């Protein structure tokens, strides 16, 4: 099959197993440049597995392309070098390190001069001013919301081309979750490609342009978000 150069991300027949358990059946999806795509589905649908397979955190079969380049054999750190950055479920923060050190690690693969890194930092502080106030605090001593801001801020320090997020609203108060997801919406408007796995469907549907509905390890539907009018529409696919 010829490489797809029109999409930012193209996933073809990606499948993953945990031992003998087939966690993800051959799944295909794509995301255009600057597109906000969300993946919805009930618990155990395979959403996290799909993201971990895309970012090569678990072994999988199938094909992954990024900007038309076959990255199936790439390692996780090499994908980060290309601009695919993932904010993991549970935030994946380095809890004993300070906010400052977490952000420094975020810029680990950022090429360019010091001025580029400082510009990126300014951008993060503009989006999340609270991080600037907490610079010397350890990540573990911050509230859940602040930790999630740090996780997103750290990912942004890498100046990603595609930001992949696994349930960023998990465990957060509705107001904080809305604030963080709205920030993602603003970033998308500036041209950042986003692939979001989210349990809070109404919030995700407001922001995304397209939705994939995953259930029992395979894609049940791919729809433009404006076609989903009510919870009943979602339930139809969830329990199909």
């Amino acid at each position, binding site marked *: 099959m010829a490489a797809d150069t029109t999409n930012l991300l193209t996933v073809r027949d990606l499948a993953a197993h945990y031992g003998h358990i087939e966690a993800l059946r051959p799944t295909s999806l794509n995301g255009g440049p600057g597109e906000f795509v969300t993946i919805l589905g009930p618990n155990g649908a395979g959403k996290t597995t799909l993201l971990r397979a895309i970012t090569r*955190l678990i072994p999988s079969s199938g094909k992954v392309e990024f900007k038309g380049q076959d990255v199936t054999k790439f390692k*996780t*750190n090499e994908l*980060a070098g290309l601009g695919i950055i993932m904010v993991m479920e549970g935030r994946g*923060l*380095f809890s*004993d390190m300070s906010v*400052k050190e977490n952000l420094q690690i975020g810029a680990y693969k950022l090429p360019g001069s*010091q001025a580029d890194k400082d510009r990126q930092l300014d951008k993060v502080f503009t989006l999340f001013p609270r991080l600037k106030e907490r610079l010397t605090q350890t990540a573990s001593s911050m509230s859940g919301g602040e930790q999630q801001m740090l996780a997103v801020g750290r990912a942004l320090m890498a100046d990603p081309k595609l930001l992949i997020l696994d349930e960023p609203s998990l465990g957060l108060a509705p107001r904080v979750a809305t604030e963080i997801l709205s920030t993602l919406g603003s970033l998308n408007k500036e041209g950042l490609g986003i692939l979001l796995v989210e349990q809070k469907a109404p919030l995700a549907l407001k922001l995304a342009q397209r939705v994939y509905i995953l259930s029992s390890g395979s894609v049940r539907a791919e729809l433009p978000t404006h076609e989903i009018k009510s919870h009943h529409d979602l339930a139809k696919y969830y329990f199909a």
Partner: protein
Amino acid sequence: MTSPNITSPKPAAPAAKFASRFDRFQVVLLGLSALAVCFALIYGGYLLTVMQMAMIYAIFCVGLNFFMGYTGQASFGQNSFACIGGYGSAILCVQYGWEPALALIGAMVVAGFFALIIGYPTLRLRGHYLAMATFSLGLITYDISIQWTSVTQGYMGYAGIPSLGIGNWTVESERGKLVVLAVLLAFAFWLSLRMRDSRFGRGLRAISGSENGAAALGVRVPRFKLIAFVVAALYASAAGSLYAYTFNFISPEAFGPAMSILTFTMLFVGGVGTIVGPIIGAVVTSLLQEVVRGSGHYQDIAYAVGLLATLIYAPKGLSALGGLFRRKKEEA
């Protein structure tokens, strides 16, 4: 808007920059350790030997802290590299007439090479499996040092090792040896600080926090773990060589599994993953062994009680106690 430039802070005065890394409690502990060295230099006698051992173990632990503390991996086999350092230096000096300083570096190269080829397959393991694999590495090296009598002289030990020196200058006096060891420890410590605060060091600490998280940000996890293992091996090798030059004699027991357990204890007593923990742990544990020696038959029990009390009441080690007190005060 101007950011506080976190990616490359403006250069501060070296002394202020150095001091800003430690809390007051850590400075006090470091000061007490320096006082113990000064006291040994003035008092002399057996205390000199105790502090010489403490300095050697501290160098070993500073390296071990890279692998176990900053990178969060388990290794019970670093005594192997101290063994390579000790015997390597002894053989190069006695049989081949190398300068002690040159032999120390030569032995470090050999230990680093072995760490590289052993670490490459071994570091694919994680957790308990890695701990067991490295422990077996320590046991194998210990056994080789006993059995390969034509090279190591087995239980008889290797005698006639020269003292540390360069050219015509050698350090023969016990006080001189302690001063040199303290200076070398200070250098090893400074070097470890530089590495810890570098991009490489931040990568290691990220691995300790979350291997997947570090990889997702671009850190080459397997490579960094291997480099940390090699760095720890280089420090262990240097410690082994210094042991040989300090006591002019080595035997397999000096680098046996007991060394791994002792250094592991030192690291946890001082504070694994902390900056000053390896030095504090080495000094406190070395002195504690001597303090409880007066309890006669009960010395092992007294030692164990002392260590258990430390681990229960200072779970993150003595050097993290300052932070613990501060948090309790804030909570109150």
